[in-house]
């Protein structure tokens, strides 16, 4: 049962992190700067060091008990569906902007342009 709750919490956390990565800068200049100076470098470093997305690893490893798998069928991982949908949109591109690295770049550009044109801090 604890696994189920943990899975849902990590799934939501993963979604919130990616939403913040891409759109966070539009809500406040502090969040934009937090993204630029801490969140993106930390995400990049975690990819480089672990060669995987840590939250994805947690999500996969939580599928331990049988009861959990039944719940997992009822509550599919919407992050995976969303990821497959967005990457599918850009399948023909030379470099997919919806890949993990691509989303960091898009977030970076959105944050920098928000800092310049919305918050006038550059």
């Amino acid at each position: 049962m604890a696994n189920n709750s943990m899975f849902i919490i990590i799934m939501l956390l993963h979604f919130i992190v990616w939403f913040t990565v891409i759109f966070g800068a539009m809500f406040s200049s502090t969040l934009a700067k937090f993204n630029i100076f801490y969140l993106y470098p930390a995400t990049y470093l975690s990819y480089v060091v672990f060669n995987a997305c840590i939250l994805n690893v947690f999500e996969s490893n939580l599928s331990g008990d049988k009861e959990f798998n039944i719940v997992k069928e009822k509550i599919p991982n919407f992050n995976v569906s969303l990821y497959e949908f967005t990457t599918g949109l850009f399948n023909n591109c030379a470099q997919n902007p919806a890949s993990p690295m691509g989303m960091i770049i898009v977030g970076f550009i959105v944050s920098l342009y928000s800092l310049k044109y919305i918050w006038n801090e550059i």
Partner: protein
Amino acid sequence: MKEIYIFLLKLIIIIQMFGALFILFGGIKSVEYAKLNVMVIIPIIVLINLLPIDFFETSKKYIVSKYIDYSNDNKTAEEIIEENSNTFILPKIHKIISNRYFVDNINTFNPVTYQGILVLALIINVYLLKYKWNLIK
């Protein structure tokens, strides 16, 4: 004629190499370069990457296809490109780093792919803008 094609191939490799070096470390030279990198060059590269073809890779393959002799040469186009890239030290280092991240044909988290280098360049340039050029408060 073959020498001209090899020269063109090496020229593209050099342009690619210096382009990557400029977006990575251009910000150290001046604040204008740092701003140009993060606000103009990198967004343009991202937009170009939305096209269905990779400009540099397609040009390299096209040049090699012009001089490769399939009847005598046992090498593939990729092998010839790699051979020419390996004459420079930076592409060699790039390959060593890439191989560490190439697991089960999945290369998503490689820090030195096109996208990985762009992220690294953005991180370096914004930190330079903040701590070297004091542009971001």
